């Protein structure tokens, strides 16, 4: 299990990286943390002729508040998200989800841009970004930028709309209102494994205890992370009763189309997605009632 031969390029700024991408295009791959790319290269599932190591481009490593968004540079490592007070303050959903990304050893190397560009439907960050209706900022070689929403960016399993000469530059998580509460739940075979199913949920409560402003996305059970639109619409104005939750469960099962693999059957994953959706909503509502912003 050793990777195939490649040439190594180490740009020191974004423009240089984009120039390399323009020159080598489909023969090249961007290397940032390498925590998804290198396993596929070790297994020879991927054998790019050129690796463009962008990990030393300092200008892409930041976490900052930018208006109504939490802007995260593509080269920000998972561990930096995990230890950021700003993330805990303005995006507790992301702070809760990040602990589910791999293991500490992986989070020490893996990057936010890498996780998004990899487009794995079982990954946590795409699920959170989809639930929050975030944005992906893409850099073009001519210096222009494009801003895409998750539905435009994630096309199917491991496939995004990113062109060979484009690069993810920034990921933007909308900052939700202070009264909103969120929850991220996941089931994996072992701690740190890819999730069989995961749900990110945001809710707000009206004064009478009914729900408003519901945002839910599910990951691991469709070719891309998916907003549960029908569940969101259904829940607005409702209080959580057993009947309501049962209907949420049914709607969720109808919205997902998982596949059977080594780790679980399609039926199991479908039921899991429904159970986790109910669980995430219950936890978020519980937190909203307590009025405490949840940060572990």
């Amino acid at each position, binding site marked *: *299990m*050793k*990777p*195939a*031969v*490649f*040439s*190594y390029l*180490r740009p020191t700024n974004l423009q240089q990286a984009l120039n390399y991408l323009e020159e080598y295009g489909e023969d090249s791959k961007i*290397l940032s943390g*390498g*925590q998804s790319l*290198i*396993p596929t*290269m*070790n*297994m020879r599932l991927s054998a790019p002729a050129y*690796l463009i*190591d962008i*990990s030393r481009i300092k200008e892409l490593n930041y976490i900052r508040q930018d208006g109504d968004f939490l802007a995260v540079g593509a080269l920000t490592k998972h*561990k930096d998200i995990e230890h950021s007070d700003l993330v805990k303050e303005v995006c507790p959903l992301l702070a809760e989800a990040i602990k589910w990304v*791999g*293991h*500490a*050893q*992986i989070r*020490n*190397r893996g990057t936010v841009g890498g996780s998004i560009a990899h487009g794995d439907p079982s990954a946590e960050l795409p699920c959170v970004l989809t639930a929050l209706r975030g944005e992906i900022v893409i850099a073009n070689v001519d210096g222009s930028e494009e801003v895409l929403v998750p539905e435009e960016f994630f096309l199917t399993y491991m496939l995004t709309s990113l062109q060979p000469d484009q690069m993810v530059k920034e990921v933007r998580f909308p900052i939700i209102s202070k009264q909103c509460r969120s929850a991220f739940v996941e089931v994996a075979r*072992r*701690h*740190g494994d890819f999730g069989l199913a995961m749900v990110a949920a945001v809710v707000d409560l009206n004064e009478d205890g009914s729900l408003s402003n519901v945002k839910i996305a599910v990951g691991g059970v469709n070719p891309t992370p998916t907003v549960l639109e029908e569940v969101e619409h259904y829940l607005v104005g409702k209080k959580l009763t057993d009947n309501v939750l049962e209907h949420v469960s049914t709607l969720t099962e109808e919205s997902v189309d998982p596949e059977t693999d080594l780790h679980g059957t399609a039926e199991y994953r479908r039921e899991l997605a429904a159970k986790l959706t109910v669980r995430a909503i219950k936890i978020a509502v519980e937190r909203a009632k307590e009025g405490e912003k949840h940060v572990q």
Partner: protein
Amino acid sequence: MSNKVQVEITINGKIVQKEVEPRLLLTDFIRDECNHTGTHLGCEHGVCGACTILLDNEPVRGCLMFAVQADGSEIQTVESLKNADGTLNVLQQSFSDNHALQCGFCTPGFLMTLTHFLEDHQNPSEKEIREAISGNLCRCTGYANIIKAVQQAAKTLQNEEMNHSVISAQ
């Protein structure tokens, strides 16, 4: 191949300068180029944790990095752990005392993960220890003895620190 790259990597305090193929994994650099064979390679795709090393004092998977990426970095491997007189350090001795290893293949990875963990966890709970070692697989011990070893090591280190502060206060 003619596309070799010059790297300078500090490994266990010693600067190593070599020309390497870009595709050389950091673990293979450590084992084959530097002859530090304590770092083990298990799965070679980032699952088992046997190859865990400290890169600039943070635990990372050696098999999920190319040596060229570590250019300019400092690396510590299991060989760096022993005391100056060659005896086992506190964590290693605790592993030995508690039978926290049987075949020993996974042990270097556990030791490096836990070396970092014990730096910021002086009195860890069992839950914290279990979470800390969740990225390292052991097929022999069932983990129970590893947890005992970490608890003993944490206690010993705490006592050593207390004795040390008493001595410096005197």
